[in-house]
């Protein structure tokens, strides 16, 4: 147990320089954004003097080095600045929009795991059969699909041609009221409120964007599951287990699958990073009011506080997730803590 907690502490310590690097990069990136925020705040009628005054109050006249320390100080106090477009604190904006993105991402990941992991296991246990070929075709096609194009194709087929899906505009059709805010996840909030009609409405809006993202993440998960299962099935302990007369089921799920799960969990971290990036595109296609579409709107008008907040939030989210995955890895790996 001691080795395990030492390892977890070591892993947490490793994340610290990365977080510092992330803060430096996001600071530099947004200071390089074109456009002068002081001039923007001052408005079109401002003269030189008032722009200079605003620049001073924003701290933009200080040397870059000093600005960075102000920035870090603000960050520690949880201050991300004010968005120029919405006029609200960036933290509030991000907080309001994050649940929409997370709901989409998590549903998509669950969906793709539910399809990809069984598919990978089937392909690995029956190499050379149609399941295996289907898996290979899906994998190569999946990594070649631009998410924004898949989304548009799905809209055309299921909204325009088949009329099955609701119009791809946001999280909920305008005929429904959004459920009372508890978690910000409409599916959970509606279920908590017992409002199943709204729940169904939210689900209908969610299906197409979640499928788009799931198709995109299917490939790496299925591929990794298949490879990990193949290598687990060909290892000595499986032969021993078979020779000892254990049932196929026990060998497959009790031994092979549990061992194959480790690399799959690691891949999930990478997949999550791709999904966060792809989120931006999918949210634009489906007018999904998440943080991705917020960032795109902010980029267009060089709203530097908002972009900075977004980049930082994404990177920190990702660092935190990888940390959790590595810790989970240490917890489920039976080899750690035995010696």
């Amino acid at each position, binding site marked *: 147990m001691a080795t395990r907690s030492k390892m977890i502490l070591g892993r947490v310590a490793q994340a610290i*320089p990365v977080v510092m690097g992330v803060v430096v990069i996001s600071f530099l990136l947004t200071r390089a954004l074109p456009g002068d925020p002081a001039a923007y705040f001052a408005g079109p009628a401002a003269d030189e003097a008032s722009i200079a005054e605003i620049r001073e109050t924003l701290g933009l006249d200080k040397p870059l080095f000093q600005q960075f320390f102000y920035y870090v100080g603000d960050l520690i106090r949880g201050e991300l600045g004010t968005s120029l477009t919405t006029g609200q604190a960036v933290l509030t904006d991000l907080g309001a929009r994050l649940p929409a993105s997370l709901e989409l991402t998590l549903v998509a990941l669950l969906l793709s795991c539910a399809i990809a992991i069984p598919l990978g296991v089937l392909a690995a246990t029956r190499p050379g059969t149609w399941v295996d070929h289907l898996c290979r075709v899906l994998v190569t096609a999946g990594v070649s699909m631009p998410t924004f194009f898949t989304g548009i194709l799905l809209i055309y087929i299921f909204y325009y041609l088949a009329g099955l899906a609701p119009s791809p505009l946001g999280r909920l059709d305008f005929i429904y009221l959004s459920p009372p805010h508890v978690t910000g996840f409409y599916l959970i909030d509606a279920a908590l409120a017992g409002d199943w009609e709204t729940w169904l409405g939210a689900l209908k809006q969610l299906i197409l964007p979640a499928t788009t993202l799931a198709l995109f993440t299917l490939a790496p998960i299925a591929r990794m599951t298949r490879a990990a299962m193949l290598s687990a099935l060909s290892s000595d302990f499986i032969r021993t287990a078979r020779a000892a007369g254990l049932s196929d089921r026990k060998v497959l799920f009790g031994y092979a699958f549990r061992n194959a799960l480790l690399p799959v969990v690691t891949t999930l971290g990478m997949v999550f990073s791709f999904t966060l990036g792809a989120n931006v595109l999918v949210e634009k296609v489906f007018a999904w009011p998440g943080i991705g579409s917020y960032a795109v709107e902010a980029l267009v008008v060089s709203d530097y506080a908002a972009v900075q907040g977004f980049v930082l939030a994404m990177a920190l989210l990702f660092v935190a997730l990888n940390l959790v995955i590595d810790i989970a890895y240490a917890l489920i790996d039976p080899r750690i803590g035995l010696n």
Partner: protein
Amino acid sequence: MADMTASTPDTTRRKGDTTLGHIVYVLRDNPVTMLAFAMLAFFLGCAFFGPALVPYDPLATNAARALEAPSWDHWFGTDNLGRDVFSRVIVATRLDLTISVAAVALSFVIGSILGSIAGYWGGWLDAVLNRCLDTIMAFPLFVLAMGVVAALGNTVENIIYATAIINIPFYARLVRAEVNIRRHSGFAQAAKLAGNSDLRVLAVHIFPNSLPPMMVQVSLNLGWAILNAAGLSFIGLGVAPPTPEWGIMVAEGANFIVSGEWWLAVFPGLWLMLAVFTFNLLGDGLRDIVDPRKRT
């Protein structure tokens, strides 16, 4: 003397035969890779000769024939300004391929140099480089690319730089690992003892060993770079309209898909997918040739 002159061309010819024979053997064994090479040739043909061969000017508008469905006149239909979608899709090949090839070449060169240095000399250089790469990898890569393009300015060159930056870690890590395992190997020490400088041993004797896995990475990366560039222009970064480019064409076509004009977005999207598919198939095929054990 006569014997030598007779035998020299003989051996060279046989050597050529075996190399060619090997390639033919590998390709015959794997028709999918052959298909990928054929598709690559097609896309390269489009990039080189496309602009000269297309039936219409990709920028010429024709209000009288706007939003026409695909027909014999306009194979892929016309867009909302009456421009020929087929011509635009074909002409865009050059720009999209240029962006991805330039970006991948840049990250290949920079990644190779950084990775070689870190792998060969190790120590604090290695540690610093690794921390920097970790930091880049800590960002969702598409988000970082968005940030870079936004910060540097909205141009095609900056799309290339952004795509190059997010790809550098993959190359640097690969080269570092390959160089690191060989830096004390027998042939490297022999080359060193023969009086070669460190730099020469690294560049001429050690680095070339990492080229086969790098080629696989390049091919897989090209597809990814195209997707990335198209994604950036889809959200309005980089390439500006009316330039024909697949991502921006899909973005423009998206506005018409809900009213049923599917050809505006579907054809450029399909073309984009086909190009990425080609590079992915090629990468998988090359991987089978280079390292058959990694087949998944």
